């Protein structure tokens, strides 16, 4: 009996080892893009593209997928196969498996802040002059949108596809009633307006303290405006006074000024938007024109506008000499081409097609995401609703291009998350904030030390 069982185990174990070895060998493809002149002929080939799903516009997205595939077939003869991922986690899993196995989608649509991580895997095509020419040249894009394509001009992987710059929405009626003739341009003025606009159950500001992303965007923005990029070469600068000042300002809207609804300690961005849409808040910073459909169906329809968020750091009346004029993080989607792809020419032909002026204008009209194509963006300038967003896109600044950025972002958000009980209780003590910042600093520095 023992022998039989042993034999059995050996046989099964052997099969396992074999399949393991096979899995390990099945990687590395040979890059075999054919350098063709003029139009790329993709007859009989299939190009696979991975995009994120748009839960707000499922049918529109399917229609766009089909339309784009038809056009691609017409232009190149190749079939376009779409794959989608619902969350950033699924996206990461797809990228991981593709990177490890060397097979998978040819083109990926990535969030801009995810581009440094993708870059650090080394699994995507670096864009040289030849590649840029294949997609119609760098010049066709809004210059700022290229800011997070790579660590420098010579090492870029991301081709900007859409832009989602952050702006603030404000309630024109409430501002007018309070005698404020134009939206705030410094963070101090913004805080003052917040106080002035608060009375009864109506609040000056709608802030999503519990959001998983918003907090770090505020802190990064205020810090860089004060001259602190958070990652400076080999060191992380979260323990800098500018960062502390930023948190104090951000928390202070609730704890000192009381110009934010106390319930906002439980809000994500969507709930802050809902409060603004209900006319309960005068300012809603950290939103984008994607909120237009919601706001146009709400109580504030026709009574709201967008403006750039303040670009003068807290505690100052003008930007310090080393401060950066940053209106927003560089936000949107980049397209990257997998290094293992056997049809890179087709991939670039596809990217060229969807970044052309008409395609980008069309995409904007369906989904409300701003074009990165310079001509298409210019055409939208006449729309007063969108103009501030376009200006914000032009004044967007890339977050540090480092594989450690994910950890910095996480640490900054974590400071806000762990401070929420204090926020709810009415004050965040100086010592608690300092110790949280110290923790964030050491974790982020450790991540940066590992960066290769």
């Amino acid at each position, binding site marked *: 009996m023992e022998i039989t*069982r042993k034999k059995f185990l050996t046989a099964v174990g052997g099969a396992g080892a074999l399949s393991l070895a096979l899995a390990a060998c099945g990687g590395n493809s040979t890059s075999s893009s054919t350098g063709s002149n003029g139009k790329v002929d993709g007859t009989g080939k299939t190009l696979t593209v991975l995009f994120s799903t748009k839960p707000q516009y499922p049918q529109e997205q399917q229609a766009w997928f089909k339309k784009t595939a038809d056009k691609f077939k017409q232009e190149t003869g190749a079939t376009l196969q779409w794959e989608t991922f619902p969350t950033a986690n699924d996206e990461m899993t797809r990228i991981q498996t593709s990177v490890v196995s060397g097979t998978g989608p040819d083109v990926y649509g990535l969030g801009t802040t995810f581009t440094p991580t993708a870059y650090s895997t080394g*699994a995507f095509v670096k864009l040289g002059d030849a590649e840029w020419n294949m997609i119609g040249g760098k010049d066709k894009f809004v210059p700022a949108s290229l800011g997070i394509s790579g660590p420098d001009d010579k090492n870029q992987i991301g081709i900007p596809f859409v832009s989602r710059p952050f702006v603030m929405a404000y309630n024109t009626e409430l501002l007018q009633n309070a005698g404020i003739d134009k939206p705030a341009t410094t963070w101090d003025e913004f805080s003052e307006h917040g106080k002035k606009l608060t009375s009864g159950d109506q609040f000056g500001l709608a802030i999503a303290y519990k959001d998983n992303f918003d907090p770090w965007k505020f802190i990064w923005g205020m810090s860089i405006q004060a001259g602190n990029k958070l990652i400076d070469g080999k060191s992380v600068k979260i323990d800098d006074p500018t960062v502390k000042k930023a948190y104090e300002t951000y928390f202070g809207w609730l704890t000192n000024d009381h110009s934010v609804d106390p319930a906002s300690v439980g809000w994500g961005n969507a709930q802050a938007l809902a409060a603004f849409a209900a006319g309960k808040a005068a300012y809603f910073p950290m939103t984008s024109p994607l909120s237009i459909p919601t706001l146009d169906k709400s109580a504030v329809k026709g009574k709201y506008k967008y403006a750039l968020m303040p670009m003068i750091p807290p505690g100052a009346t003008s930007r310090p000499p080393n401060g950066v004029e940053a209106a927003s993080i560089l936000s949107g989607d980049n397209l990257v081409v997998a290094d293992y792809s056997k049809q890179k020419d087709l991939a670039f032909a596809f990217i060229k097609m969807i970044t052309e002026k008409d395609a980008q204008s069309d995409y904007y009209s369906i989904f409300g995401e701003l074009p990165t194509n310079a001509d298409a963006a210019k055409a939208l300038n006449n729309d007063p609703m969108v103009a501030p967003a376009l200006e914000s896109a032009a004044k967007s600044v890339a977050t540090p291009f480092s594989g450690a950025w994910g950890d910095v972002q*996480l640490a900054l958000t974590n400071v806000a998350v762990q401070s*929420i009980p204090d926020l*709810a209780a009415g004050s965040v003590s100086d010592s608690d904030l300092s110790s949280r910042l110290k923790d964030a600093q050491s974790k982020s520095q450790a991540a940066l030390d590992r960066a290769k």
Partner: protein
Amino acid sequence: MSIEATRKNRRTAPGRSAGDGPSRKSRKRKGVTERNRPLWLLAPGGLLMTLVILIPLALGIYMSVIDLDQYTLRKWLSTPFIGVENFIEAITKTELLRAIWISVSFAIISTVVTVPLGVAAAVVTQNAYRGRAVVRAVFLIPYVLPSFVVATVWKTMLQPDGIVNTVLHNVGIEGGLWLNGPQSYWTLILVEIWAAWPFIYLLALAGLQSVDHEVHEAAALDGALWWRKLRYVIFPYLKGPVSLAFLLGTLNHINNFTLPFVLFGAPAPADVNVLPILVYVTSFQSFRFGLSAAMAVVSLILILIPLFIYLRAVKLDVHEDGVKK
């Protein structure tokens, strides 16, 4: 019963090894002998188990001893071997130990509360009465709702200005913050209990179904009142199913990712930074795959301990029928 079975096994063993004619014949009559059992029939299942469990497990353990992160992911086969460094880092430099403490205490509290609830619910629906089917169906609602839905609904109700705090406020109690701070730990337990007790209920119900009809009759003839009957007649029958439910329930609580993730988000508040969330954040937000694999291995060991104790206790591998053949 199992001890008896083991004794039988020992008694038959010498005769088997002698391999004399008559005894072999007698075994043949009973069916397939132990010696020539068609073990190859296990091959498809074995292969599947290898592919689905053993290879990923081996890969996970391998990952835990290499320096795998976003920078080395692409060349993972040549990633530097760093031995136990990931484990040392996990234990000394991360919140792993605290996360283990939170996970284990939360799991045990949840189980300790759900077991009596589940057993009581099973007893209540044991005897037939009008509307029993409806009650049974209602009891299963938390069990059939996806975790994601449960967590989303609770999250909405427990907002600072949500319905729970509004109701509490109306009766003069300030609910405070449910989804962050020290209270969030109890929120997690509360929601887990709400979602998990029907599992215990199901297993307890299965146990009650196995009580022979004669036992009920005998108890009735002896004039046992409901509590004595429950305590001395029915509960002994439930010991097996309920201890299994206790074990599986605890393991499910420790492994539950969806509930804390949806309720509290990531990064999680320090009081509910449970093991699955910590592993998730380390993997997918910090991209330290090696480190998170080490954490997963530690949690696997953690889970194996009660499992091992349980398997030893019930001796699942020694079965009465198995011994005879």
